[in-house]
């Protein structure tokens, strides 16, 4: 207990004094996971909307599959992305492995089922009368889609934040394709993994506190948005 207490105090000191390493890792985490979330949202909110607005055989099965993939193991995504972007892989020419871009790619892919699935369920929550109203007021299919997305803008913000939460807290995929390179691809979670294994409990704990704080902030925003 004493050890934990002392580590906690040291961790808080690291945060309060703005330890440059802690700060840079935190910012890098936010940037990488934020970019992954934006990328994923830009691709998979429209994708989810496309699934929602179109009718095709097997749609229900696809939606079920997407929901199942919510909890796809991060290391599995890491492995797939690793194989794809390794020099010997199909996308090896991009030279993406062990770069922040690789982490962004892996995290974007990791959260894509969450973004897609939650987008679909958010749109499913729109009263059918909204669609009828837009249609009867002369909206085209695209305009209706935009209208409905606008109706669920708060829910979509929640979707995005949920994706961000999963991205920033995952470690398996990031460490596999990012390589945990100091000052380049080292994020809160990968650093915690390394520092804990090296016995630097205080440093790990500082990062852990920050991670929890970010998660807390995200859920506060989500909570607020859901009450709107």
């Amino acid at each position, binding site marked *: 207990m004493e050890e934990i207490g002392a580590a906690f105090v040291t961790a808080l000191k690291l945060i309060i004094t703005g330890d440059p390493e802690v700060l840079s890792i935190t910012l890098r985490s936010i940037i990488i996971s934020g970019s992954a979330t934006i990328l994923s949202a830009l691709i998979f909110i429209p994708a989810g909307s496309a699934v929602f607005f179109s009718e095709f055989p097997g749609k229900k099965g696809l939606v079920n599959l997407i929901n199942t993939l919510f909890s796809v193991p991060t290391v599995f995504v890491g492995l797939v992305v690793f194989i794809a972007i390794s020099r010997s892989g199909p996308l090896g020419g991009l030279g993406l492995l062990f770069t922040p871009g690789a982490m962004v790619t892996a995290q974007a892919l990791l959260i894509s089922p969450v973004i897609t699935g939650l987008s679909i369920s958010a749109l499913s929550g729109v*009263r059918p*009368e*909204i669609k*009828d*109203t*837009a*249609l*009867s*007021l*002369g*909206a*085209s299919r695209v*305009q209706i889609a935009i*209208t409905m997305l*606008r*109706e669920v*803008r708060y829910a979509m913000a929640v979707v995005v934040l949920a994706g961000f939460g999963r991205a920033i807290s995952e470690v398996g995929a990031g460490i596999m394709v990012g390589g945990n390179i100091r000052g380049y691809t080292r994020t809160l979670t990968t650093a915690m993994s390394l520092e804990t294994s090296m016995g630097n409990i205080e440093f790990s704990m500082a990062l852990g506190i920050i991670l929890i704080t970010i998660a807390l902030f995200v859920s506060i925003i989500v909570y607020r948005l859901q009450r709107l």
Partner: protein
Amino acid sequence: MINIRQLNKFYGGRQILRDINLNIDAEEVFSFIGPSGAGKTTLLRLIDLLERPTSGTILYKGVNTAASENIRIETRRKMAMVFQRPAMFGASVFDNVAYGLKVRGEKNPRLADRVGKAIQDVGLAGYEEQDARTLSGGEIQRVALARALVISPEVLLLDEPTANLDPVSTVTIEKLIMKIIGEMNITVIMSTHDMAQGQRLAGKIAVMMEGRILQTGDPGLVFNKPENHLVARFVGVENIFEGNISSNSDGLVNVAFGPHVLEGISDLSAGEKVNIFLRPEEITLTPSRTATSARNSFRGEIMRISLNGPLARVELDCGFPMIALITRRSAEELNLQKGQNVYASFKATQVHIIKR
């Protein structure tokens, strides 16, 4: 303006509309009247091209609306529909009203002018920036009207415009609709389950039941001369008897029903089996058989009196059940009591006789 031919609509295995044939003229105020589940809403949705019929055609100004997706959206853009429970977009009143113009590509400042005027027309000036979802039911109905009218539609479709409103809001909305009808060159197609509202607003009504149109015509005709007992029941004919014409002299007929006989006007000849329709408000009640011009008078015992707003509904047993609707005031003046015997009288001209 709108011609509907042999329209059928199924949902799953259930038939909602059966062989609808209908012509609606330009600038007509046309109302579908019928109980819930009659298919009124579905028919309005088909006319607004929100859904496709299972079979049959809808012509808009002679053009088959099923010809192409393009024609569908173009035609739809000439119409505007106000739903029974209007859905407000999660935005301000202004943005809600502006929606139809925005999807048509209208730009400021014309957009703002037209939206502002529409909001003013429905009496909501000052509410522009309010979140539309925080409004009351009546206000939402008015925003929905403004939202529909701002695009200057050729056809305005109103689905049960007052079904969910309190009486005060109902009056406001009806006044608005009357103003619209009076001031705009617009075709209005509405639905209501309230026959009185249909009578107040519509120039022509169609009575619908179980997916069919049973009778179409001007309200007076439908109310006073229903073509069959289903329509009669719905338009408030509470006294319906089955009988036979026993004699006809120059249009004045005697109709026998059970042991009773009444007089009516009809050109049907003796021996015809008929339905006898008598609206309860055509019956006058008197304590004694007095001299009146009414040809028919039956003595009956009051079984029940129930008050209905300004009216009193009196159930009589004249050897057959009869229902009379008189003003509450006259009920009080006559000091009607349950168990009392009174005379129920009505004119021969008020008896509507149709072939059975």
